[in-house]
């Protein structure tokens, strides 16, 4: 892995001065991911917070080639760029060694862009897709998505007098990507620079389709003080709400196994979206969320046991 000193010497490909919220986890993910790539990179992005806040014409925060066209097609867009590169390279019209990273939020990835992502991964394009997963449609004011966890209050599935936020559990997109038999799929979290850098570096060393799902705490949508972004990411991992793991050619590796697995309430409590869960009448739902997390964690450990090194 590149040392911190080496990383610091690399040019920032997403400059400051963009319009993302203070305390937003997304630019942390983007800057660290791009810093982990030595080669030139072309970036594609789905419509969403990241795109609208970094490309307000006539300004751009991107110091590397960037393309956006619509919401549901970041992966298909990158398929086209990569195909153009492959064609022009085969014809000897370009010489550079270029890498391709597509970004999408959870709405643009789990939901509306799901088909486009699945198709691009199946076709085997040489690209890395990074989902900055903040667990709801934050750009349009916190609507529920397929990534929203059970019990979270969103503006389209809010907690109220008779309902307690999202009824269903979230979609496990990382495992769905593993099921595509792509050479590399992983989960990381905003703020753990070492984990994300390692994973992006590994992804870049592999030819073919790669996917990294990065949990991105969102101060606006989750409802917490803006200086807690990195802390909440850490709590998501320490409670096993969001395990850090990777699957390389079918081989599972859990990167962080907390010595003292914290109760999931430690992660939920600082967030306004889960506030209602701590009313006495919702104790059962809170237990259910804990049991969901426990089961998923046990299953992941079993997968590592069965399909690990």
């Amino acid at each position: 892995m590149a040392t911190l000193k080496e990383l610091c010497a690399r040019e920032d490909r997403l400059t400051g001065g963009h319009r993302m919220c203070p305390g937003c986890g997304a630019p942390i993910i983007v800057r660290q991911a791009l810093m982990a790539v030595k080669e030139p990179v072309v970036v594609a992005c789905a419509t969403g917070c990241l795109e609208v806040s970094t490309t307000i014409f006539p300004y751009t925060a991107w110091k590397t080639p960037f393309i956006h066209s619509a919401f549901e097609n970041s992966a298909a867009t990158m398929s086209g760029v990569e195909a153009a590169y492959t064609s022009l390279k085969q014809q000897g019209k370009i010489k550079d060694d270029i890498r391709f990273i597509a970004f999408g939020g959870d709405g643009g990835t789990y939901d509306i862009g799901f088909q486009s992502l699945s198709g691009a991964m199946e076709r085997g394009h040489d690209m890395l897709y990074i989902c900055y997963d903040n667990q709801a449609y934050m750009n349009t004011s916190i609507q529920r998505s397929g990534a929203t966890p059970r019990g979270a209050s969103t503006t389209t599935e809010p907690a109220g007098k008779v309902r307690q936020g999202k009824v269903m559990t979230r979609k496990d997109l990382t495992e769905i990507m593993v099921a595509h038999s792509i050479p590399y799929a992983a989960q990381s979290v905003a703020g753990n620079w070492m984990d994300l850098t390692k994973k992006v570096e590994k992804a870049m060393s592999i030819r073919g389709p790669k996917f990294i799902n990065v949990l991105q705490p969102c101060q606006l949508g989750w409802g917490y003080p803006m200086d807690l972004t990195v802390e909440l990411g850490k709590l998501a991992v320490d409670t096993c709400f969001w395990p850090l793991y990777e699957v390389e050619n079918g081989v599972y590796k859990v990167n962080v196994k907390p010595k003292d697995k914290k109760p999931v309430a430690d992660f939920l409590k600082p967030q306004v979206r889960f506030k209602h869960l701590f009313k006495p009448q919702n104790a059962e739902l809170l237990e259910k969320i804990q049991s969901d997390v426990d089961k998923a964690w046990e299953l992941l450990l079993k997968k590592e046991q069965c399909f690990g090194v």
Partner: protein
Amino acid sequence: MPQIVAKTGNEAMAEAMRQINPDVVAAYPITPATEIVMIFSQFVADGLVDTVYVPVESEHSAMSATLAASAAGARAMTGTSSQGLALMYELLPIVSALRLPIVMPEVNRALSGPINIHNDHSDTFAARDFGWLHIFSENSQEAYDNMLQAIRIAEHPKVKLPAMVTTDGFIISHCLEKIEMLDDATVKEYVGKFPAYTNLLDLKNPVTVGALDLQNYYFEHKMQVAEAMKAAKDIIVEVGKDFGRKFGREYGLFEKYKMDDAEIAIVCLGSTAGSAKAVIDEYRAKGIKIGLLKIRIYRPFPVEEIAAALEPMKAVAVVEKCDGFAAKGGPLFDEIRSALYDKKKKPLTVNYITGLGGREVTHKHIMEIFDELKAVADTGVIKELIQYKGVR
């Protein structure tokens, strides 16, 4: 040397694509356009082209990938029909706004619902406001010639707009006809190198494509598309004349068939024109002075030229395979009548909506239209402004 060959419309368009030799093709199957990409895929498999073929999982992704490949400096193409085009609608105005000169064969097929696989023009007519050039073809020869010219037009520095070249589903797409094909080297020279106006792979000049464009700039950018569309008209005429000089088949904005001394005329698009010409010849033999104006370029709409050509007529019938459900006639009728509005002497103009969902437009239908139109011209009275011909 040009060669005389037998080709269906789909084969002719696929051959044109082979000779254009695009860097990238991203496509998805849909009847009746599937054959174009099937044939082209075989060219890829046989190493006859330099193209990277992206077998996408939907037309939305087909246009997304084609758009992105074009923005990455590649000559990129796709092809589709009907529902496939409808799935692309979201991206069509993005392609024109990004000024990406993508050329797309489009085989006109009725829009669902009810589901139907046969020809009418509802699919591309619904896409008329997206900043694409629309070029209609009467037969396989025109489909082939239009594909080649579309590259020159779309990629022209004064145009830089995408173009769809259409044929009538099954009627042209699957009908075997004699066409003259140019040789590969001639086409290669004719289409030339792709001018990559936007190039994501130019690392020395990193570009942001598809930025958020708010109140301060959106209007100006749309204005540029409007101006490019205006400028395209002259380029289309220029390219059509040049094609005639080079290869013996000249093209314009529309074709006038026996219009010089005509008193009444019909206006139509695509394969209907072939039938209309046969009927006109019969009527002319009987001494009835009728003519045809066949629209080739639907976007940009050649408003002054059409008005000038129709002005001397006593009566005009606009025959079109689309109902815009505006309860006031089809889209083409609207535009033709609007074109004539500023003329002092206006022909009596009526509308016939025909052939929806592949209902055959027969010689008998066209004869009836001419007979009724002649009565309008003779009496000066329009009994029915909008009629549906061939519906039960």
